């Protein structure tokens, strides 16, 4: 049985002549939260989009639970859930009908269970029956996190999960993410927020200019660079 949820080896991704990802390798174990951190344009989102089957691989390989992303993308999509940084929902639907729409792509017998879980994670209370276009940014993000985690994915790929949220909303979402790994879900996330990464991630990889320049447990990295937090580690490594 495959022990790692994600196995990326020498991944290269180009857009025309620009090499956005220049041969990165990392693994994410089952039940682990792995964070990709780096400045804008470092290649974090591109990496996440490749892992989530949205972009094609130019070189190297990506395996999800032993399935090759390049050749078995239809199978891979059964096990993953992707939350893009600036994702939205269908504006003419209510929160509940949006979750129902998503759950319809999964096993019929689990449908009600998924919807219920999505509603619980989103914590929108009676507003779940309001149209999505009436939601605040925080409510929308909670709905989308609910959507991403309700189906018990074996791998959740979260791009800047708390992006643009106020402190309280961000805290709630971090808690939801932390809780979701208890049932074995592996999480691959990217973030600019170093405190968030330090709190959430079991391991992190620092990515800059398409390359992973450092990787390890947050505590080990802080010790290695004699830093008080990951932000300091990041500054020291990038400089």
């Amino acid at each position, binding site marked *: 049985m495959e022990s790692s949820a994600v196995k990326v080896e020498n991944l290269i991704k180009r857009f*025309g002549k620009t090499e956005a990802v220049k041969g990165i390798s990392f693994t994410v174990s089952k039940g682990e939260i792995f964070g990709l951190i780096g400045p804008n344009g470092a290649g974090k989102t591109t990496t996440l989009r490749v892992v989530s089957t*949205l*972009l094609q691989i130019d070189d190297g390989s990506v395996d999800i639970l032993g399935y090759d992303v390049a050749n078995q993308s*239809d199978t891979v999509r*059964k096990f993953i859930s*992707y939350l893009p940084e600036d994702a*939205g929902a269908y*504006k003419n639907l209510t929160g509940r009908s949006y979750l129902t729409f*998503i759950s319809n792509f*999964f096993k019929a017998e689990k449908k009600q269970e998924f919807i219920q879980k999505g509603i619980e994670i989103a914590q929108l209370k009676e507003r779940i029956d309001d149209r999505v276009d009436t939601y605040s940014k925080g409510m929308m993000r909670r709905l989308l996190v609910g959507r991403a985690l309700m189906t018990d994915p074996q791998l959740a790929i979260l791009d800047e999960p708390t992006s643009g949220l106020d402190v309280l909303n961000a805290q709630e979402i971090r808690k939801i993410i932390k809780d979701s790994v208890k049932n074995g879900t592996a999480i691959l996330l990217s973030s600019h927020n170093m405190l968030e990464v330090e709190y959430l991630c079991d391991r992190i990889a620092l990515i800059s200019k398409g390359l992973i320049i450092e990787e390890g447990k947050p505590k080990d990295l802080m010790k290695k660079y004699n830093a008080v937090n990951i932000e300091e580690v990041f500054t020291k490594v990038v400089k």
Partner: protein
Amino acid sequence: MSALGNIMKKELKEVLTPATIAPIIFMAILFGSLGNAIGGIEEELQQAPVIGFINGDEGSFSPLIASIINNRSEVVFQSNTMSDKEQALKKINEKDGLALIYIPSNFSENILNDSNGNIEVYWIMKGAGILDSISSEVVEGILYSINYEISKKLVEKNESVNASIALNPSRRIDTTYFKEQIFTGLSPSTIVGILSSQSTLIPLIIMMIIMMSGGTVITSMALEKENKTLETLLTLPVKRVNIVIGKIAASALVGLLLAVIYMFGYSYFMQSIQFGSAAQTSGIDLALSTQDFILMGVLLFVTLLSALSLCMLLGTMAKNFKSAQTLTFPIILMALFPYFITMFKDFDTIPTALQALLFAIPFSHPMMATRSLIFHDYTFVIAGIIYVTIFAAVTISIVVWIFKTDKLLTGSSLARKLMKFKKKKTKGE
């Protein structure tokens, strides 16, 4: 710069983009060249029509008729016996002529005996477009002159005929040959009139359906991108082909529903007008049968599919709602082009290059089908159905392929190059 000028400059910059100007210029060029291709009406009207003339009459009006015909037309076959009719028609056909005029032996005698003198006209009709019957109007003018000159002569000579015969001495008996069929009692202009009443509504319906449901598909794709729902949709456990087919099928159903509603209205319209009294008195059936309606329905459905798949293809290029609106323009253009062509000209009477272009545009086929079905030209309609089905299948395959690649999210390499060029230009400014 004043505040007003500043705002105007900004608005003009936003509105006058290559994307908005290019289609207008393209349309102007297209319709300009279209006018040249199907035009030449003035020349056609000034030219002497090519006809055949059989004059069986030896009476007092015979020289007058012969003189008018010989002066105002190019007579390629002349005889005085109707036994030469077939030979005459063959010759006229060879010379791309319009009609055979036959004056029976008792023409002058009948008029002088207070009866109308019959003029038999055998028309060789080339096409059923409005402009196709223009040259037959010249022949109609000659026939009017004959009637007028005889009337004048009767009045001048004070012949003892009753007033109605003196004012209208001749009577035309028309027979039209078109698409291997014979229409007794109908002239080409009458047939064109009858067909126009039937075949102008269908293209309008098609245009409306294509524009409405096509716009829906393009907008749907644009909104998926604008509302940031596309990426989520593409990572769900659903095959790309199902996403494409699902989007097309939903819009096709809406389009089909619209088509059915319109077709009901259309068939009611056809039943109520019954193509005018001319068609009824001739005893000729110019209506569509149930089988024709079924073929028309199939053709409409595959055309709708091809339109939607084409819209889906264009929709993959849409970045947002605004760009989606621009992208509907080529579709509107593709619907307008055959609409105008088929309104003015018949497929058989346009230049070969234009024929090829018209056939290549899938939307042309249902627009041309009504005429073909009325004249039982099933080969053309079935060929159209096959072509449009292949077109739709190929386009859907291309869309599915795009959905399977990066291009849907990252754009084509050409689009990226254009974007880089635009950025460079902006920097330069």
